[in-house]
């Protein structure tokens, strides 16, 4: 799901370490949160908009300058759909 490639040693090491962390985190169950609303953000702003006006963005060259693989001014990616034979 997170698109990470792990070796079998890594899997073993991280599962042990993350189990310890999750065991620790389980103490949250002791906190009484009945009738408590979640706080997803601490700022008091909501629905901030700006004027719908076009602004200068990156040029195509600038947007592409860090791409490892490109072609004809476009990002080049691995094939996503395979052709049926």
């Amino acid at each position, binding site marked *: *799901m*997170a*698109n*990470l*490639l*792990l070796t079998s040693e*890594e899997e073993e090491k*991280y599962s042990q*370490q*993350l189990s*310890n*962390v*999750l065991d*620790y*985190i389980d*103490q*949250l*169950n002791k*906190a009484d*949160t009945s009738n*408590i*609303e*979640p*706080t*997803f*953000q*601490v*700022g008091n*702003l909501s629905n*901030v908009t*700006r004027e719908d006006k076009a602004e200068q963005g*990156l040029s195509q060259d*600038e*947007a592409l*300058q*860090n*791409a*490892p*693989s490109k072609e004809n001014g476009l*990002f080049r*990616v691995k094939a996503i759909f395979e052709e049926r034979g």
Partner: protein
Amino acid sequence: MNLNKLTIAAARKGLKEKKFSSLELTKDCLNRIKEVDNQVKAYLTVCEEQALEAAKKADELLKNKEESPLLGIPFSMKDVYSTYGIRTTAGSKVLDNYIPPYNATVYQKLIDAGAVILGKTNCDAWGHGSSTENSDFGPTKNPWNLDYVPGGSAGGSAAALAADMAIFEIGEDTGGSIRQPASFCSVVGLKVTYGRVSRYGAIAYASSFDTMGPMGKNVSDVAEVLSVIAGQDLKDATSSPLQVDNYLGFLNKDIKGLKVGLPKQFYGNGLDSEIKAAIDGAVMVLQKNGAEIIDVSIPNTEYGIATYYIIAPSETSSNLARYDGIRFGNGRETFGQEAKRRIMLGTYALSTGYYDEYYLKAQKVRSLIKNDFEKSFEKCDVILSPVSPVPPFKLGENVNDPLKMYLMDAYTVLINLAGVPSLALPCGFTKSGLPIGMQIIGPQFSEGKILNVGFQYEQVTQWHKEKPKL
């Protein structure tokens, strides 16, 4: 001439009185980097060419009597800020060769003010850590003792400042990343109110916690830089429209009658005895200068770390999903260990079936913690707290125990959960000569007030003047 040792205020005075030029000041900083950074390893990138050019330009403007608080003053930044044409890595090999095509707002404001960029400093990759040992480019060393960590994640910034390799620094604080290294290296660092400074162009760790803030050699330097970088930015919808104060203007009130709250939960088991003693000393200093000390309570203190280590990894797993190796950067196989751990933890906490149990639960506990602080601030003006429960530790000592490392963030993550500002400043040393820091916490948008309390403390103490011997 060792001009690199100067504070902003002293450097400004010298520039104005033509005792030296920005070019000389900048060269002294660059020479210092060449002299000691092979030991300290604070910098990931030194941009000598840009620095010299910016310094020459500043000298021209100074000749024309231009007035700007940071004109010609050399600084460096934690390597999470996008800097046009200057490599920006976030401490990760994923961005090893990344050259940003635009500027972060904080950086833009600083160069507009004429400040001179020296380079980019080391940090735990993506801000994930408290020691810089999670940097994919190797750790920074603590200038006070090279066998010890400088703290993290902005350990490079704190170490560079402590070793006089810059006049001021810009860090970034998500769960303590400015305050803890400031305290480990004996410099001043400010975590601002969430939304006080624009996050635009800063590489995101956990977006609902990330705050951009200054680090300096004393409190007034930090106040001066904050006045330049704070303010609303239409490119960051969470930046506050509240007016920016001239923070230097706050540094003139005595603290007679100031109510300083000590949360009883902060001073129990787990706090190192030498740190406790240093804080007791600071309490006495504040009392002697007229402050009133009162007991307050943050009843949900014990849940701080668990809450933070659900929400922050959740947000980071989402933020780091953009690194696909297609548009920029290397592929996902390049992530280091800690990034992988946090991506997995966050992905798990957000996944169907666990969302309510972990993520939503943590966001509710966050409300409780925020509430605890709001209630305390009905009784007191500021809260005094340790920054770290332990003094700086040895390199390698805790690398194989992530949970132990997380537990060291006990006093810092609470502040990010509540979204309030906090000023970390030096308040002593251990018997073995390692720095100890404290933090002064205030209600949202009370930066002026906490800076003044720190400033008044600094006027009657000498800790901030101590320098490491390298």
